[in-house]
Each structure stands twice: as C-alpha cells, then as structure tokens.
C-alpha cells in the first residue's frame, strides 16, 4: 500500500442546451457576433428582473436524476456577490442552500482506464455526487493591448454545476469520470459536452496526506479543458504535493492553473482569506416547487444511460465488446443500430445475424464515410442512409438478391440519393440473375468459350483429381458470371457448372 493517499474532488460546469438563456429570452448560442445575443435583462440594466427558464430547471433535474441525486422538492436561488467586469449584475444568480439535486453517485471503472473498459464485467468504484445546482454563466473578458473588452453573449446562459465528493485518487479516475459524464450529458441531450469550446468545464481540488490521516490542505486547479489535461494536471499535482511533503514541506492552500504548454500546474493566486460571497436568497425569483408535471417531464427525459445501454446491447445482440463500444458511443448511433436491426428483422432476418451484419457495416463502411465527411457519431441522423435503409441493404445481401460487391455500390449510391435501396437496385438493374434459363445460358456461353477447361474439368472429375476439377470449375463459374455481366447469382452458377461437369464426366 502506498504511503500517501490522494483526494480529488471535481466541479464540472456544463452549459445546458436551452434555446434561450436562464433568465431572459435571449438566444443561448456561441460563436455569434460579440454582444449580439443580449438584452436589458442579461446586461443588468436598471429595473429589469430575471424570469426563470423552466427548460433549464428540467434539463438540470434530468442530469441530477441521471447521477442518482435526490431532487429537492423545493428549491430557490441565491445571489452570489462579487465584482467582476464580465458579470453584469456583479452578483451571480446561483443555488446555495437548496441545490436542484443532492446525494447522488456514479460508478466508474476502478482505477479509471478509459470508457472502453467500463462495460459490463469490470470492477467499479463508486463516486459520490455531492450536488447539482443551476446558475448563470458570466460573459467573457478579452484583453487586447491596453484595452479590455467584454462580450456578454454568454452572460446569463444556463450552467449546471456538478460537484463530487473528494472520492477520486488518480488522474486516470478523474479523466474517466469526465469522459463518462460527457457521454452521459450528451446521451441525455442536455449538453454538447464540448470541452474545447467550454460547454463542459472542469475544476478540481486536490490534496494529499499520509494514508489514513484524512484530507490534506486543498489546492484548486483550473483550466483543465480536456479530459486528458484532467488526468495530466491531477497526476502532476499529486506528484508535486507528495514531493513537497516528502521534503518536509507544507502544501500551500492556493489556486493553480494547468499550463498545457509546459505540462505543469502553476500558481494563479494564493488564498489569504476565503471569499465572502454574502449569499442571500434571490428576492426576484419565487421558490420553485417541483410539481407532478415537472417530475414526469424529468422522468421522461431520463433515457437509458451509456453504460446501461452498452450492457444491454452487448447481451441482447451478441456483439463483441469492441463493437459495443463503437455502436454505443453516442445515443444517436446506438438508436441507429437498434432501428436498423429491428427493420432487418422485419424483413425476415434472424436478429443475431442482422445485428452482426449491421454492426459490421456501422463499424466499418459507415464510420469510414462519416470520418471522411467530418461527421461525428452523433450526426448519423444527418445521413440519407437511415437505419432502415442500411437494414434494407443488409437484407438484400442476405436474401441473395445482390452481391457483396454490389452492396458497396448500393451503399455509396444511397449516401447521395434520397431513395430506397430496393428502388436503386431495380433502377440500376443491380439485382442478381437467378432465373435458371439465364443462368444456364451464361454457363453454356462460358463452356463454349472455354471448351478445354470444360473437358479438363470433366476428365479430372472422372479421374478423381478433385483439386484440379475444383480449380477448373471455379474458372468456369467466373467466366459464366462474367458472361452474365456480373449479375448471375454465384451459388446458382456454381451449381449449374458443377452439374454440367458431373454430367460430362459420367459420359466419359
């Protein structure tokens, strides 16, 4: 057992995907012209009042429930007071005494190790979620030369802060949690999880101490804006603190920034005294009581979460772990998979076979095309090849109506044409020839063109030279398919060639 124990708590802020801001009707959008999505309310003009966006409450509650939190039957907002130029009112409307949800938990794979290992069957570690609370974001201050500019487009947008207990011990565990949380909120459709753009932001507090001695003195780390930086930053910080203590030093209580260029944390500010935010209840907003309608809208938003879905998809469809991980990466992708399998079943395919074929398409050709076109797994709905259409392609192959080679052509056509695969096949005349007369004609044409191969095959068959007979027959099959313009169904052609060869051998 290691001499030191480390304690990491995470505070993750997620931007909720509400159409309008938390307390006004301005568009909540990013990347627009600075100060274009603002109004007197989110600019903190004199005389305006906040009006709570119920959708922000609902989305926040959905996340809280997904993280196994208990929803507070009655919640209210407080004003958190401090002066900062990007905060229009110089107080933030936040929740202090009555968070939306409290006392939740999530399980992560013990020791971390990335999401792939977190499917069924791995040992897990439970992370306690202290609370989820709703608040408004601030604007953005930009320093340019000797002037400071402020963009208030982000001011007043809805943020959900998710606070864990200090239950992580390593950067890998924290990284895994962040990735898992990111997938969860994307599955729930309440946050796009984009860490680079700041839609999901992570701050951490870290302390180390001799094992069994409880929490050490706490250091806050900011600017961990990718899940990798979460791992690197925290591991660096734990090492730094352990080294300090080993040398007989003391860890200073401070806020540090992760410097991604130097791969280290650096002092941002030393806390001399804790900030006094002078919280008090926001008098402009009445307390919010969750009524039955609200509760049911929250429950309705609780979709199957990533790991539950991985577990189910794995066992229900018999996919490999690798396939499960790719198929379930995004909710839209998994939905696509299940829709395709259901449609293939409806078209008469066996479920497991259908699942296997669909998974092969999705993890191979579909993924390749989407990567090529810069689409993420969540964008699968944008494709003209819907799940049902992919199922139709798979079923056409399974029923022998098209060849595997044609299937690829068909898929490419279906990507650009707004048409059903069966119609494309019919229009292009891609369907395999199965008519016995046409097969026979193609075989006869091949025999006529390659008489020596045919007689050689017959002789080999008669003489018991199985290998030679097979080679020559296969040659004739290829020729016959060629004679059919590539459309003759290979199995039928093979049977017809073999029948002719056997007949000729018998006559010898």
């Amino acid at each position, binding site marked *: 057992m290691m001499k030191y124990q480390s304690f990491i708590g995470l505070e993750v802020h997620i931007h909720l995907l509400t159409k309008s801001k938390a307390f006004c009707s301005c568009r909540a959008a990013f990347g627009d012209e600075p100060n274009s999505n603002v109004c*007197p309310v989110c*600019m*903190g*003009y*004199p*005389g*305006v*009042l*906040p*009006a*709570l966006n119920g959708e922000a409450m609902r989305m926040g509650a959905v996340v809280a429930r997904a993280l196994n939190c208990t929803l507070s039957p009655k919640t209210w907002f407080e*004003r958190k*007071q401090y*002066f*900062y*130029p990007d905060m*229009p*009112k*110089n*107080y933030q409307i936040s929740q202090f005494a009555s968070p939306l949800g409290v006392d939740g938990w999530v399980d992560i794979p013990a020791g971390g190790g990335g999401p792939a290992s977190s499917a069924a069957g791995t040992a897990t570690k439970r992370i306690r979620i202290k609370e989820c609370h709703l608040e408004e974001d601030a604007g953005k*201050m930009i320093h340019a030369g000797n002037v*400071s500019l*402020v963009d*208030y487009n982000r001011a007043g947008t809805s943020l959900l802060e998710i606070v864990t207990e200090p239950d992580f011990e390593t950067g890998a565990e924290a990284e895994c949690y962040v990735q898992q949380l990111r997938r969860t909120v994307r599955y729930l459709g309440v946050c796009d999880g984009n860490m680079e753009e700041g839609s999901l932001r992570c701050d951490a507090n870290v302390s180390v101490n001799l094992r069994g001695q409880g929490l050490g003195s706490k250091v806050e780390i900011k600017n961990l804006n990718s899940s990798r930086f979460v791992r690197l930053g925290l591991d660096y910080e734990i090492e730094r603190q352990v080294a300090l203590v080993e040398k007989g030093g003391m860890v200073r209580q401070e806020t540090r920034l992760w410097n991604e260029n130097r791969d280290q944390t650096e002092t941002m500010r030393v806390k001399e005294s804790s900030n*006094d*935010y*002078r*919280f*008090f209840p926001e*008098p*402009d*907003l*009445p307390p919010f009581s969750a009524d039955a309608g609200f509760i049911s809208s929250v429950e309705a938003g609780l979709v199957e979460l990533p790991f539950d879905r991985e577990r189910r998809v794995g066992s229900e469809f018999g996919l490999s772990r690798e396939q499960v991980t790719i198929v379930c990466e995004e909710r839209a992708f998994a939905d696509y998979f299940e829709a395709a399998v259901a449609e293939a079943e409806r078209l008469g395919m066996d479920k497991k076979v259908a699942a296997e074929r669909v998974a092969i398409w999705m993890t191979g050709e579909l993924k390749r095309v989407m990567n090529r076109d810069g689409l993420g797994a969540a964008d699968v709905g944008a494709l003209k090849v819907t799940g049902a259409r992919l199922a139709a392609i798979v079923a056409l192959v399974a029923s022998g109506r098209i060849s595997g080679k044609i299937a690829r052509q068909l898929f490419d056509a279906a990507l650009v044409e707004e048409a059903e695969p069966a119609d494309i096949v019919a229009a292009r005349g891609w369907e395999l020839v199965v008519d016995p007369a046409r097969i026979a004609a193609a075989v006869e044409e091949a025999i006529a063109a390659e008489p020596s191969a045919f007689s050689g095959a017959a002789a080999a068959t008669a003489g018991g030279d199985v290998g030679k007979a097979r080679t020559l027959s296969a040659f004739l099959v290829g020729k016959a398919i060629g004679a059919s313009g590539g459309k003759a169904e290979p199995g039928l052609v093979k049977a017809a060639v073999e029948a002719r060869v056997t007949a000729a051998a018998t006559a010898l």
Partner: protein
Amino acid sequence: MSRTVLQDGFSAYLDAWEARIGSFLEKDAETIAGSAVLGADREPGYASDSTKGVLRGLPFGVKDNIAVKDMRLSCGSRLLDGFRSPYSATAVARLAAVGAMPAGKTNMDEFGMGSSTDNSAFMRTNNPWDVERVAGGSSGGSAAAVAAGLVPFALGSDTGGSVRQPANFCGVVGLKPTYGAVSRFGLVAYASSLETIGVLADSVARARTVFAAMRGADPLDQTSFDAPADAPSLLPLGGKPAEPRAIGVLSPSAVAKALASTLSGQAGPAGNGGPDEAAREASAAAMLEPEVALGFEAAKEGLRALGHRLVDVELPSLKYGVPAYYTIATAEASANLARFDGIRYGNRPAYAENPDGLIDGARGSGFGDEVKLRILLGTFVLRSGFQDRYYLRAQRIRTGIRLDFNRVLAGVDAVLMPVFPTRAFGRGERGLSPFAQKAADLFTCCANLAGLPALAFPTGVEGGLPVGVQLVGKAFGEGLLLDVAEGYEAAHPIARPAGYRAFWG
C-alpha cells in the same frame, strides 16, 4: 394632456409651479403632447389606443426610478445622469394601453433612499403647501406634482413608505399595493422583497382607476400575481356610500406603549451613542406631533360618522419594524446597486488603470453619501458568519410582523394607522436628523415587511399643512381600502394648496 388644456394656460401654470417646487427632472412638451411611442414593441397596439381607454389623454408623472422608453432613468443619482431607458416598465406600458401618457420623470431621493427628496443628486423638491418644507420622499417629485395639479396622478415606488409619506406630506392620495399586485419590471430595485410601484393621485377614485389598469401578473416579473377571485372588487363606488367596516385602530397610545417596551427591552450600556440612547432617540422620533395626533383623532371621528365600527388593536411587533426593515432593505440594496459599475452604462471616470479602478471611480463619484451608507450597512449585515445575527434575525422579525397583522386582520377589515409622526418637515434646524427620519418610518415600513396593501389619504389641514391617515388591509384587499377612503373623501373633500387649479376633471 390634450392640446386644449395647453391652450387654456396650462403651460404658464406648469412653469410657475415648477419654478417654486421643482417636481420634474424631465418634462418634454412633445412627450406631454402624447407623441412618444413607448414600449410599443412589447404591447402591440397600445400607442394607437392612447385615444381610448379609461385614462385617455391624461398625462402622468413617473418617478425617475421607473423605466419609460427613451426617457431618463437616473434614480436621482449622478451615476445614472444622462442614462436613457431602452425599455418601458410594465406598469407604464399598461397605463399607456388605456390612454394615459407619461409626461415626464419626477424627482426623488437617490435610489429611493430618503424621506425628503433632498437626497436627490440634482435638485430640491419643495412642498406645494410651503416651499420651505420638504415634499417628503422618496417619491417627493411625484407627490408635489400631483398636489400642485401639474398631473392628475403619478407613479411612485414604496419600499418602506416612499409613496405614502410624501403623499401624506403633500395632501394627496398614496396607494402602496399588495406585494406582487403590480409588476416590478422596470422599477429600479432598491429592496426587491419590500417594494412595489404605487400610485399618487389627486383623488381616491383616480388612484383606483390607475391601480386597476396596471395591476395583474406579468411574465416578466415572476413575483407578480393576479388578485384571487374573491378579492374585494375594484369597481368605483359611483357616489354610493361605502359599506360599513370594522376598522382596527392602532392608537398613538398603543404605539407609545410599544415603543416604551422597546426601551425597557434594551439591555445595552447607557451613555452617548449606546443602544439605549439610540432607542430613546428612536422613540422620541416616533412620537406623534400634536397636529398629527389631532388629525388622527378627527379621522377616527369621521370614519365613525360614516358608519364604520372602530376597535382598538395592538401590534406588539411594530417596535421591531424599523431595525428589521433597514437590515433587509440595506442587505438587498447592497446587491441591487452592485450593477452600477460604470462599465455597461452610466457615468465613469475618463480613465482607469484597470477594471477595478474604473468600478471604484464610477461608484465613488457617482453615489451620494446616503447610498454609500446603506450599501455599507447592507454589506455588513450579509457577511458570512453574521447573517444569523442580522439578516436572518430580521427575516424572523418580518415573519412575526406578518403573523401579527394576520392575527389582527382576522378580526377587522383594515387597520387605521398614522402615516408619519410629523407633517412635512422643514430643512436645517427645522428638519429631522437622518436617524430620526429612519426611526419615523415605523408606521409605514410594516406594511412593506408584511407585503400588505396600504392606502394613505388626506383627512384635513392642521396648522396650514395637510394631515392624513393610512389604512392597511389584507393581501389583495385594495378595493376595500379604496371604498372606505372614497367614502371619506366624499364627506371630506381633499384640501388643495393655495394657487391650485383643477385641470383634470
């Protein structure tokens, strides 16, 4: 204001009065003529409605802390001098929707902090009855303008008595509605949980019409509500006598008793500036001036003569009202006024080294002393670790006062109280110290703490100055208070200051 009125010499009348009393910070002939199209974007069609509706053609004054699109919104503060509102308050838009026209912005104590309007950064407003005296505050400009007949009514805001006290000083009707009955959207916040937009009017009937037009739930103010279906009606009496009511009387002797118990309840060390001293001073400040006491007794007689049944009541928690009020009001103010940092709007220093320097400069030079004092007080009472001693304790007192009123109002229809211990006071030596002015909020601030409606109305003239009383009612019981006061007014017409001419019919 119709052009006919202007032709009848109203302009000269307006200018002459304004030169004496200084009630408006801004009045625009174009605006008065009704050409402004405020808030049209939010309430489609209301501009075209200005020729119709129950308040058609009537101009009104708007306290300078209530937003009217494209008009100033200075709140009587240097910091917001020159700031023009990009939007209109819901109350203003609703009045415009029934034909009324905002005629200008009236003077006030800076951000509503004061009882005289002398705390305005811009100018003094004098009392139309005696220009050596104050108009009261903080809605002093609105009260003076109505009292002088410059407008038939004006909007004010009442946080601890800021509508009723100046109405009382100037001899007009002042209605502080139930908390939430009128949208606060567009009222620059001083103490959000206490204040409401109120009406100052030249008659009870007018106050009723104005209130009826602007009340009701507003999606832009989630603390606003519609009156419950069983609330007293707001239909005009139409000359009929008011229904006889049971009116609880909080008599001056009961108040004296309450204050005496404050004194005995003080355990602090005696001596100059100690709590005992302060309590004694507060008690003295709350004692009714003889003329006010006389007026109060006359009003009781008048009400009795109209068939109302008067019963003595007691409000034991009244004595805690002022400290609780100032604790809560300053706490909320410290946060509400934080937005005035000179960054997005308002005045600021020409140059600052950094954002902090800009904020400090803007607030240091923009706010007056009384505002700074209250921000400091509010910041003090909200410190972490001290909230239990101050802010939360004040909230418990507030609950006690609300329960006290509920108990009393379970037995009577309304409570009759003085408005202010004195009539309009003078300035300098003849004035009231800032401390005494605060202590004197005793009778008005409790209705704000309890969120109840209160109606101040003039009952007569004593020693050349108007005196009056107030009725405090049940939540959403404005109709009942207005009925009683309208009946009183029918029997005792409101006295007007010398030089008053009735233009508004």
